């Protein structure tokens, strides 16, 4: 098991190295940040001084080397636009996106898996048909439209929930979290719901397909022959087997939500990473874009690593170093 973990961590480090180089080069090739930083009528001296200050006159590999060295020390540079360290900028926005993504993916899983399992267990019941209709809606209706409807209904029409922005936050570990206050939770519900609908549909489908297949297997028939109740079989036999694809999708969805919650964050004026990155792309704030992409790559690698480890916990056949 230890060898397995070390091997995966090494792989993750290599992926990170490759990603950071790709990102750095890719972003360097887009536009010219100097045009953004300096007004067109600035003198050549000011121009040169600024270029030198940001190291933009150095060869690309040297800039990358410096970037990598600073990255390893946790220094991601300064934002060209805001003039503050990029790390601060990103860390101030990350919790908002993180709690939104966790809430959305967790809700989709905790609600979607039981619904899907029921639909797979009793495929012909009216409730199952309703569940499947909901999942088709979740797949086919666009996110921005659902977001607007949610605001219209719950915020404007009923006035139950706020239409946007983040609620009160509490400082834990030096950053502000809003899910710890009642007001913050209220603000979180609509955007999280909006983000989770598609994932909910996916979790329902996944759980249903797995449950249907497993319920017809000899394993389940044998368990029934031994007198196990359907409840026990669903909780122990079926859940354990479908948890592997579910963990996979959970990880993928969590990563992509962190990276691409832009639409929902925009609709609900949620001060998260999505808004930050859109702004930084518009203003060609290169250090922010690079740091953001490296961070997202890092989160993906971290999530994949965790998913691999959870696999090994769930399925003994994947553990190495065991005598067959």
């Amino acid at each position, binding site marked *: 098991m230890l060898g397995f973990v070390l091997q995966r961590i090494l792989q993750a480090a290599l992926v990170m190295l490759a990603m950071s180089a790709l990102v750095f080069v890719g972003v360097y090739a887009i536009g010219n940040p100097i045009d953004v930083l300096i007004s067109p009528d600035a003198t050549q001296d000011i121009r040169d001084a600024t270029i030198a200050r940001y190291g933009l006159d150095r060869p690309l590999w040297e800039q990358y080397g410096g970037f990598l060295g600073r990255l390893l020390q946790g220094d991601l540079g300064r934002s060209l636009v805001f003039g503050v360290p990029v790390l601060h900028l990103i860390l101030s926005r990350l919790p908002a996106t993180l709690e939104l993504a966790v809430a959305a993916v967790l809700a989709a899983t905790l609600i979607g898996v039981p619904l899907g399992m029921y639909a797979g267990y009793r495929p012909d019941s009216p409730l199952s048909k309703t569940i499947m209709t909901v999942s088709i809606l979740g797949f086919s209706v666009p996110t921005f439209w659902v977001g607007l409807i949610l605001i219209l209904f719950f915020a404007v029409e009923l006035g139950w929930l706020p239409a946007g922005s983040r609620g009160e936050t509490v400082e834990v570990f030096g950053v502000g979290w809003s899910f710890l206050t009642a007001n913050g939770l209220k603000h979180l519900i609509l955007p999280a719901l909006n983000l989770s609908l598609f994932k909910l549909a996916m979790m329902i489908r996944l759980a249903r397909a797995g449950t249907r297949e497993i319920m*017809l*297997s*000899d*394993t389940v*028939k*044998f*368990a*029934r*022959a*031994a*007198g*196990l*109740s359907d409840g*026990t079989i669903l909780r*122990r*036999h079926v859940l*354990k*087997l479908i948890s592997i694809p579910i963990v996979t999708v959970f990880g993928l969805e969590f990563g992509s939500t962190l990276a691409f919650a832009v639409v929902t964050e925009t609709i609900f004026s949620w001060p998260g990473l999505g808004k930050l990155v859109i702004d930084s792309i518009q203003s060609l704030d290169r250090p922010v874009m690079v740091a953001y992409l490296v961070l997202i790559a890092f989160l993906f690698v971290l999530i994949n690593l965790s998913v691999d480890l959870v696999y090994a916990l*769930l*399925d*003994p*056949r994947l553990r190495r170093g*065991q*005598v*067959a």
Partner: protein
Amino acid sequence: MSAAAVLQVAGLSTSFFTKAGVARAVQDVSFTLGRGEVLGLVGESGSGKSVTGFSLLGLVDPPGRIVAGSVRLEGQELVGLPSHALRKVRGRRIAMIFQDPMMTLHPVLSIATQMGLAIAAHERVGRAATRARCIEVLNRVGIPGAAERLDAFPHQISGGMRQRVDIAIALLHRPAVIIADEPTTALDVSVQAQILAEMRSLVAESGTSLVWISHDLAVVAALSDRIAVMYGGRIVEEGPTDVVLTGPRHPYTQGLLDSLPSRAKPGTELVQIPGGTPSLLALPEGCPFRPRCPRETEICRTMPEPTGDALRRARCHHPLVLSPAEAA
């Protein structure tokens, strides 16, 4: 009806209502199983043996269901029992072992967990007692180093060992009846012989009655006190093993015997029954064996009723050996 009868099956019929039509997989099956008795249920694949076994446990999944008949286990009627009551019977008083041990055990639960769940389905037993009981039963089915094997996962043990674990799970609650559905068919011949011998002594010492299902008459002959031969969803012949083997009444049984390798004269070709298993969706009118039967006549277009008594009977208009009543 003997006093020692453990399982009495009468007129059992199970059909599958598929889009292509109604498949009458089991029709009018009747037999009685005495305590400690081994009944061999033999027939070609597709003849309805497995469905018969599942019907006895009330484990027929839609689109199939039991459409008629009665299954009495120690006097209690099982057909029509609500599902929660049936669940309490399954595994405790009547158990079943399946054909392919690679498919029956859960791939990612340990053997201890799976046996523990099977115990917990019927009894509240503490952790230590559960473990002790598992080890004891695993020892009984001939698993060496049972204490270590208990913590293994199915992929870590061989097919023969897996089938022994399945047998152990079936034995956990000392059921009155075990249905063994071709439990050795998927195994190596040597393992097959071992398990067969072990099974024989296990049922002998525990007094468990056994329905041993197989397509292989030789396997059934080695183990059973009595034999029932199935064809096209019906039992076409039934009797004590030696009587059926030496004096079969039904031409199909005769055909099975003729095709046994051990019966063939060395150097001659094996005799095969001409034709193939009929589709249950399109059974011929009358006797289902008629199209393949050397003794077929006009009367075979009507379904023959069983002749003889509960211990020795056959369904044939032209039996090879007459029952005493027919001879008289």
